[in-house]
């Protein structure tokens, strides 16, 4: 064993580690998980702009943003869950339920808008807490829990709605998120601004606070995090509860967008939010990704939708393109996770 004493120390080992191009790319993608979706977004924008110059018009770009607002907000909540290596299939159903609560309280019970908003958000928080409780305390897999609660929340929504769609006048508090803010030729809605605020807040919380770091660590390796002293169950349940709050805000944005509530409005929102997160470079295996990627992911979907329509292409190709992007994003993630020294 005497020979091992003369072996170079860990320091030399680390110094010797060569940086190959593939390793360098891996390091960059690792540090900036939103980089590859950003490149896709830019390439798509350039291509669609060349196909039809109207794509770049501020009015058109404003529409893209407005269309991305609801799924983009929802994707913030979905990102939190997926970072913990979970998944939330019920997130869209919770949003529709919360939007219905808000709209119905205002329209049929004449509850003041702010109170209705608060009750709707509390409803979404309770739904998120239920998911989190089942995942952390009853120890059920997130996929199964939220598959179940998806049905439950959808049923509650349909029972509560009694087949009705609720229309509300624009310009009230509860539909304020649909109000337009004009910056020159750009017409954003309050909903778009709220969505962007959500991204700012959560980009900060995930990167700059211990809570965010613990969320990443728990999603990355729950057992290791627990042994390192992180209270992982607390972190997990907090992700579901906070996601519930985000969904409540997404519901408000939805109410403003459609000026009311429709039990069938967010039927695809579950999967669309997952699509945005995955295209945005967040790993379905947890612990990797950046919330801003989900914004880029949501924008990519809308840009394809809008750009292909402007280019006069059959809109079904958008569905095809999104499918390819999802697979490409997951393949890229596999590569990022597989490269080892």
């Amino acid at each position: 064993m005497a020979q091992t004493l003369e072996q170079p120390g860990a320091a030399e080992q680390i110094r010797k580690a060569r940086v190959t191009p593939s390793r360098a790319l891996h390091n960059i993608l690792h540090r900036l998980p939103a980089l590859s979706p950003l490149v896709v977004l830019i390439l798509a924008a350039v291509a669609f702009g060349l196909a039809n110059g109207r794509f770049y018009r501020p009015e058109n770009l404003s529409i893209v943003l407005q269309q991305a607002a609801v799924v983009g907000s929802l994707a913030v909540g979905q990102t939190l869950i997926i970072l913990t290596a979970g998944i939330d299939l019920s997130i869209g159903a919770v949003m529709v339920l919360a939007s219905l609560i808000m709209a119905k309280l205002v329209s049929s019970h004449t509850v003041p808008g702010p109170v209705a908003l608060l009750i709707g958000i509390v409803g979404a928080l309770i739904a998120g807490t239920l998911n989190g409780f089942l995942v952390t305390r009853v120890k059920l897999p997130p996929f199964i829990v939220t598959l179940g609660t998806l049905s439950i929340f959808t049923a509650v929504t349909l029972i509560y709605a009694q087949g009705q769609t609720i229309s509300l006048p624009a310009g009230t508090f509860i539909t304020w998120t649909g109000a337009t803010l004009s910056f020159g030729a750009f017409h954003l809605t309050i909903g778009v601004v709220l969505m962007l605020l959500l991204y700012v807040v959560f980009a900060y919380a995930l990167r700059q606070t211990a809570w965010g770091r613990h969320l990443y660590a728990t999603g990355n390796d729950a057992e290791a995090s627990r042994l390192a002293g992180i209270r992982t169950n607390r972190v997990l349940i907090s992700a579901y509860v906070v996601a519930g709050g985000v969904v409540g805000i997404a519901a408000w944005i939805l109410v403003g967008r459609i000026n009311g509530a429709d039990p069938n409005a967010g039927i695809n929102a579950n999967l669309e939010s997952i699509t945005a997160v995955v295209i945005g470079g967040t790993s379905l295996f947890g612990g990797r990704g950046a919330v801003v990627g989900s914004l880029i992911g949501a924008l990519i979907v809308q840009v394809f939708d809008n750009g292909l329509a402007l280019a006069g292409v059959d809109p079904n190709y958008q569905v095809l393109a999104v499918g390819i992007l999802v697979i490409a994003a997951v393949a890229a993630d596999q590569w990022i996770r597989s490269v080892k020294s």
Partner: protein
Amino acid sequence: MTEPVLSARGLVKTFGHVVGLSGVDLDLYAGEVLAIIGDNGAGKSTLIKCLSGAMTPDSGTVLVEGREVVFRNTQDARAAGIETVYQTLAVAPALDIASNLFLAREQRRPGVLGTVFRMLDTGAMRKQAKQHIDELGITTLQNINQAVETLSGGQRQAVAVARAAAFGGKVVILDEPTAALGVRETGQVLKLVRDLRTRGLGIILISHNMPNVFEVADRIHIQRLGGVAGVITPQSHTPAEAVAIMTGAMTLEQPVRPDR
């Protein structure tokens, strides 16, 4: 003789009808490496879990510097200055070295940024992480921001040991630190263990690897069937004798005291 930094008296732990520990005594002194060896099921893991707070013994006492302590969880043991490096390493692979060193012990910015906005003091943590690693002789670590998963097994182990050393005020417990490593990496980890000893920490090393144990340990605590079969030193016994004691082929009358 100085007081043991960590000792256990009459630790008993049962799992239903299975006896994990049947009244185990242990003494660890500052500045020594105490190896714990034993066959599978001899109670090594149960013993260190009781010492690291991962498990609570049914009876018996744990003393830190002569004071009786009760560890309800690993945080309690940490607060008492006992750090454990688990066999699984307990590092988050996607996080960088600095983040892993400070995992679950993050420091916040001073002032309003830290108290109201809960902002992490990333700069200070990186600086300190680099200091700790330099102190341990892992100098010229080029990139403290490197993700742990891009490191080799030995380097990861170094990160886990560095974390334990940086915060372990008194005792570092290492559970099979070389089990998954090659010869070269094993050498690096054993060097770290010696460095920690030089710094005056008490080290408990659980290992199956007799050459490693005899190379680095000051004393060897042998577990057998939930009890202590004896405490020997690398000078007093040969590896073959240690294995014989471990398997019950030989018995030992007198525990050996450290001669320091």
